[in-house]
């Protein structure tokens, strides 16, 4: 039995570290493609301002990228350090996309990011543009493989539990990577990154326009960002709907929690705009509803219904009953792998094995489980409704607000009047945190909504954690919080400083002597006096 406090602390630590990591990821996903778009204009038109844009936003990109990489390392460790049972149990499936992420995507992204920053003077225009696109593609492919892995946790496909190895084993790689949940989730997340980057660039550009600084750069960046953002926001909303639709089939408990749906209703179901769900009383208070909308959202039809949480809890209780013989058979098979009777018993009940595990939290020996223990375990099958319900609504609300913002931004910039609308520019600056909040909320919906499972309906969270002492977890949690707090303070300071400093003339090449050979084969010095003198001016202004 793992100490429940350890499980809770492990969950807290994972949530803290992944939510923190996810502050930096979306900006990387989107800004890389925005950089590529800017550089494309530079390469096609030859106008130097677009190169300056790509370099300036590239500098901010790197400040963000460093922490994205650093905190990403934590995630790679944490499955093993804190979720060792989980890692052993699904490593056969879950490890593969993570390793492929390294092979196919992270390597590409990290190798070319060095060339993107240091290679301006060493690569031909077209080569450098290709490098920038590869960075963008690499970072998004990273997201793809990570979300394929996550998709398996949400809707496990292409794998089956094997009693001889006591773990899940892969049965179909294509089912794993083409899982509908993974598909919709990848596109939703990747494009949410585009939205984040678009609002970041638009907001910072608006700040320059308000101060009448760097207008050439700011107007162009703003125009490109809002066009990028308006299309991306539409994409995010579309995919958000798709995810909900996929989830309605694959994860009915998550959907019911998102919508605060306790009792099953007949079609057409009404949608709770606002409600205050009570986990204890298993009902909502203070409800405001819109008729018909839930049927439309969840089933894309006026006649469709989805089950409520009370009904889902009853179903869970039945499956828990059915999971008991599966656990008993498995215990026998662990000692005697060739026991045919136990194998037959296991095969008959294997689809409810996970529910048997759910019961073991309350009744380690399932053979003597009482009806009360079964009821307790069944109640666990419902996630924390108010968290899921509200983070979902905040995410959707912010998404719609961003759509309105970008539409208005497109109108203003296409009529070339945005620099004369100070109220709108101020709004843009204040909007910068919005997509970050929306992204974090999205994670909460997806992962709190998946509870009590790490692998949906197969492996419960309570048994996934490593068997550590509470002291270890307190130590590591404090360490992470301290380290990450220092990091975010430094990052914010450097980011704000770089933005205040603004785009200046950029020398580049990392001090590497330029070897783009001239006809004489002599190294051509890249940097004349001018950049250093501007660097000097800048440092003077700092003081």
């Amino acid at each position, binding site marked *: 039995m793992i100490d429940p406090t350890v499980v809770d602390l492990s969950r807290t630590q994972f949530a803290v570290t992944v939510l923190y990591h996810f502050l930096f990821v979306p900006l990387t996903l989107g800004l890389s493609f925005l950089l590529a778009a800017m550089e494309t204009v530079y390469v096609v038109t030859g106008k130097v301002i677009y190169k300056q844009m790509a370099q300036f936003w590239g500098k901010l990109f790197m400040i963000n990228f460093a922490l994205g990489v650093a905190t990403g390392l934590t995630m790679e460790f944490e499955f093993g350090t804190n979720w060792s049972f989980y890692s052993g149990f699904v490593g056969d499936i879950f490890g593969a996309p993570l390793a492929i992420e390294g092979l196919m995507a992270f390597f590409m992204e990290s190798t070319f990011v060095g060339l993107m920053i240091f290679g301006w003077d060493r690569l031909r225009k077209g080569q450098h543009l290709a490098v920038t696109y590869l960075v963008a593609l690499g970072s998004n492919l990273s997201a793809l493989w990570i979300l394929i892995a996550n998709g398996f946790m949400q809707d496990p496909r292409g794998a089956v539990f094997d009693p001889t190895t006591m773990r899940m084993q892969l049965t179909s790689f294509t089912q794993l990577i083409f899982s509908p949940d993974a*598909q919709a989730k990848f596109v939703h997340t990747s494009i949410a990154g*585009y939205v984040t980057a678009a609002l970041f660039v638009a907001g910072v550009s608006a700040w320059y326009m308000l101060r009448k600084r760097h207008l050439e750069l700011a107007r162009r960046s703003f125009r*490109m960002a809002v066009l990028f953002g308006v299309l991306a926001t539409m994409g995010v909303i579309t*995919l958000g709907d798709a995810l909900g639709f996929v989830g309605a089939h694959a994860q009915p408990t998550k959907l019911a929690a998102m919508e605060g749906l306790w009792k099953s209703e007949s079609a057409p179901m009404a949608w709770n705009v606002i409600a205050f769900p009570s986990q204890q009383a298993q009902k909502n208070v203070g409800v405001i509803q819109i008729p018909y909308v839930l049927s439309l959202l969840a089933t894309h039809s006026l006649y469709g219904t989805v089950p409520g949480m009370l009904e889902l809890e009853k179903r869970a209780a039945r499956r828990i009953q059915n999971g008991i013989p599966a656990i008993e058979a498995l215990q026998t098979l662990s000692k005697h792998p060739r026991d045919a009777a136990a194998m037959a018993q296991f095969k008959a009940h294997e689809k409810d094995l996970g529910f048997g595990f759910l019961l073991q939290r309350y009744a380690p020996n399932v053979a003597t489980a009482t009806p009360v223990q079964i009821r307790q375990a069944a109640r666990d099958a419902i996630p924390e409704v108010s968290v899921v319900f509200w983070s979902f609504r905040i995410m959707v609300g912010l998404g719609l607000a961003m759509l309105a913002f970008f539409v208005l931004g497109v109108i203003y910039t296409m009529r070339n009047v945005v620099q004369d609308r100070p109220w709108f520019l101020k709004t843009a600056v204040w909007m910068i945190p919005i997509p970050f909040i929306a992204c974090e909320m999205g994670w909460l919906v997806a992962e709190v909504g998946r509870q009590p499972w790490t692998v949906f309906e197969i492996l419960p969270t309570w048994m996934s954690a490593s068997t550590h002492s509470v002291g270890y977890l307190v130590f590591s949690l404090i360490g992470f919080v301290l380290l990450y707090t220092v990091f975010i303070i430094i990052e914010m300071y450097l980011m704000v400083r770089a933005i205040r400093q603004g785009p200046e003339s950029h020398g580049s090449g990392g001090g590497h002597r330029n070897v783009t050979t001239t006809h004489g084969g002599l190294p051509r010095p890249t940097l004349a006096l001018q950049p250093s003198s501007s660097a000097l001016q800048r440092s003077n202004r700092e003081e």
Partner: protein
Amino acid sequence: MTNMPTEASAVKTFLLFVLFMFLAVVVIALAIVLGEKGTWYFAWLVGTVMIVLIAAAGGALLDTQDEQAEAECDRGHETH
């Protein structure tokens, strides 16, 4: 080139805003209907290329607009 907001332009902006929001909703609804087929990886590829190109074209268009405005400004000087 300053272009202060007036009553008429505010109304025009509002109407444009309503129109574009409506268009956005229609496009999203269409995409949802098509999306039930669920080939989202492919959609991402096409969508990303489209988004990048449209953003790039929008940036380039700003240069054209600026040049036009400059040209008009010059013509204005000539006629006066």
